């Protein structure tokens, strides 16, 4: 990761970057207790305006998944072309006591993905801007094969 040469979070609302232990940022309603990601300025369940920020657990279990096998049209952004597109995994990860979060997965081999798999948050570069700035996104990675592949 190229924090030293310039990188930024794809959206600063999602996680703080650079950070040594990045975590996803959520909001909790002070009236009804509902948790929301991405963080909102009001509650997605009851509409109350009083919300507090909190961070989500960094580890969880795979709850649902698929492999994206065709390159999405715009607004999808990556360094790839249709010819060099590599299918990517995505899923929902169940974060204990919090929420299931929809996320890119670092694994794209369906044989290596199963519901219940232990997963951990990582931050990876999704695309490079013209000035070389790496635009960082979050993904979840199977804990055993954490560094096996790039999303």
């Amino acid at each position, binding site marked *: 990761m190229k924090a030293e040469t310039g990188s930024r979070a794809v959206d600063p609302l*999602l996680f703080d970057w650079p950070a040594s232990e990045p975590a996803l940022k959520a909001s909790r309603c002070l009236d009804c207790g*509902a948790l*929301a*990601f991405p963080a909102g300025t009001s509650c997605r369940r009851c509409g109350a305006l009083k919300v507090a920020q909190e961070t989500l657990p960094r580890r969880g279990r795979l*709850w*649902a998944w*698929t492999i994206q096998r065709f390159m999405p049209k715009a*607004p999808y952004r990556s360094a790839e072309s249709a010819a060099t597109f590599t299918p990517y995994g995505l899923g*929902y990860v169940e974060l204990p006591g919090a929420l*299931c979060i929809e996320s890119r997965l670092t694994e794209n081999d369906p044989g290596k993905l199963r519901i219940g798999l232990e997963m951990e948050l990582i931050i990876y570069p999704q695309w490079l801007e013209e000035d070389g700035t790496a635009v960082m996104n979050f993904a979840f990675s199977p804990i055993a094969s954490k560094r096996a592949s790039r999303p």
Partner: protein
Amino acid sequence: MRVAIVGIGIHKFGRTPELSGVQQGACAARRALEDAGLQWRDMQFGYGGSYSAGNADALGNEMGLTGMPFTNVLNGCATGGSALLAACREIQSGAADVGIVVGFDKHDRGAFNASPAEYGLGAWYGEVGMMVTTQFFAMKLQRYMHEYNISVDTLARVAEKAYQNGALNPNAWRRTPLGLEEIKRSPIVNDPLTKYMFCSPAEGAVALVLCREDRAHRHATKPVFVSAGVMRTRLAGAFEVYGPTVSLAPVANATELASRAAYEMAGLGPGDIDVAALQDTESGAEIMHMAENGFCAHGEQERLLREGDTRITGRLPINTDGGCLANGEPIGASGLRQIHECVLQLRGAAGQRQVPHEIKTAYTHVYGAPGVSAVTILQK
């Protein structure tokens, strides 16, 4: 007071490069008016919508600019259902006696590419590759298969049935029957779904002429009545399209909310339904929607599909016109296509695909982004 459907018209689904979406809508409108024995100038109001083919009130340029009130409806996959509901209320309120509902569309090839901003989502959601409807259906299905032991064979059986029914429907797009193995072995699009298990964005148009219940027999020998029409949006925490999160505790989805409300409105239950049209943007959607609309227990679909219960000759025929799988998905038209097919079935006028047993009650259901559903219950 119920509202009567006294005229139906359809323009063939699929690809029609020589006609704009609006022109296809006008074709459907002319056929619906002819079916009801009425003229465009007799219409006291119109409701209609398209997602990609322009404002529905542009129909006036084709049909005649009569000064009538015409309201454009833009409600995703619930566009047709929402237009029909608004039209029903127009008549039930006493404001009008007769009017028209039109849905049409004309989409580019390939998957939809919606704008995150239009759905209240940050740009990041699309930039990182999560703003793709097919992913949602695949992930929901993957979870469902895990929880309820649904097999890939069952997914293929739904698609096989759709193309068989499409082959019997002159207005369908995909009219070539495909075998189970061919469906299973076509390229995977989003695991576990293959190319032939998905519908494609397409073109097409449907129109309905509606009137007061007590005038139905003036315009139709076999009117069909709207016993319930309901549209619902999502609840916080439900598992829905373009949803960055799902709550840990299960929450009823938009389909379940709309379905329950429709049964309650009609005073009927799933056991009263003789024929159904359920949103089948992919074959897993039809399977999940069977249970969510109350037609079976979760997991029971495995046996029902194996035994052919949802075929035209089965106990509860589903998507007798081939559904979205065989007709494609023109968003503005699909909901009204379901109603068009159910009216044909209730009239006994569905030709080669007519359900052979006596039918009195039909059910239609659409579902789409970002968690909207519309359900109608129709009766003779």
